């Protein structure tokens, strides 16, 4: 049986993380599962955790009045979901809905924030990894805004 520590260490988001940091993070982690159609979180909910996706696919949606929510991105195996736990007011700004059966590791945001405050080396490592993800998502959003398929 796989241990939580090994699963976390093998997730691409935490690849090559110092084993000591992995051990610290395990204390904030738990296995979670969602069925197709389940919401992992909704806009306005407290952002008290984030997810390392192990299997399945999740839709990130924006609620739009008088119409169905708009899916702005999908995330799958090996990806990470959620960074609103990092910054006040710790509230989700989007919805996340499982498009299919989903397995993930949920990391408690408050728990990890406390550990990062106590261990700034861990905090810097976590922030560097999130900064890379945020940069990639920002670039992807810019490309969506460019409407790159508009003219051929």
């Amino acid at each position: 049986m796989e241990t939580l520590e090994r699963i976390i260490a093998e997730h691409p988001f935490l690849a090559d993380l110092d084993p000591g940091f992995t051990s610290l993070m395990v204390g904030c982690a738990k296995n979670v599962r969602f069925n197709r159609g389940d919401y992992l979180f909704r806009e306005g909910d407290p952002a008290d955790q984030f997810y390392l996706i192990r299997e399945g696919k999740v839709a990130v949606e924006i609620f739009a009045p008088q119409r169905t929510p708009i899916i702005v991105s999908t995330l799958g195996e090996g990806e990470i979901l959620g960074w609103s736990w990092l910054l006040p007011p710790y509230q989700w700004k989007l919805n996340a809905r499982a498009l299919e059966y989903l397995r993930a590791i949920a990391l408690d945001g408050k728990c990890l924030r406390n550990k990062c405050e106590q261990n700034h080396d861990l905090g810097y490592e976590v922030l560097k990894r999130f900064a890379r993800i945020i940069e990639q998502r920002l670039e992807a959003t810019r490309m969506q805004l460019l409407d790159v398929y508009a003219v051929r």
Partner: protein
Amino acid sequence: MATAVKADAMVTQPYLIRDVSKETYDTFTLKLEPDKGSNHTQFQPGQFSMLWVFGVGELPISISGDPDEEERLVYTVRSVGQATNALVTRSVGEAIGVRGPFGTGWPLEAARGHDVIVVAGGIGLAPLRPVIYEVLNHRKDYGRLVILYGARSPRDLLYRKELASWARQKETQVLTSVDYGGMSWRGHVGVVTSLFKYARLKPSRSVAMVCGPEIMMRFVTRELETYGLSRSDIFLSMERNMKCAVGFCGHCQYGPHFICKEGPVFRFEQLRPLLEKYEL
């Protein structure tokens, strides 16, 4: 790879429309067969023809059919203006004029024994469909086939049934993505470059063929290089305002190149300096 200009390159041959099928709300596929006296149906994947709608105008359209089907030519056309609208609203049995095929094809000979990565955006899948047919028709000659296809929304995706059918073929991976999905869309959402992380690529033994708007191709080539593909193994299909199709008129000039004659398929390393020039 370049095809010699035929002596009759300026002579339009009559073809009859045998089928018009709707791919999306604005895109149609036409199947043409030669009328009596004309028999030019052979082409290389990646080449284009000049289609003349009598009384309306002539326009360059990539061939999107199976190169092994020698009795007809197939074109996928997005209706965006007067001439394209006139073309897609022709009825079965009507005649149009065809010149060509023209230009360079995709490097299928060079790709033999290699994995083939097809990256398409929007209607850019049409000029790449003959590549997919060729690889699937001659499966043992090629390695894995990876198709990455992006479009604005689910309703803009071309060849949806075929995409599903290709995904079931052995040694073939098909990933599609849309910029914006509705609640019923269960596929990926994000630009086509976001699919690379799910693709099973072996960069050192792969040839990539890319077609779509130039801005998309710029991002895709950057991603392919990030994944380790060499510039010499990346090929792009360019589009400019082709008129004569034989390199006389200069309408399609792109830096030192005439797209109609030296292209439309180019090696990325040939084009890279031009793709970085503003307003070219």
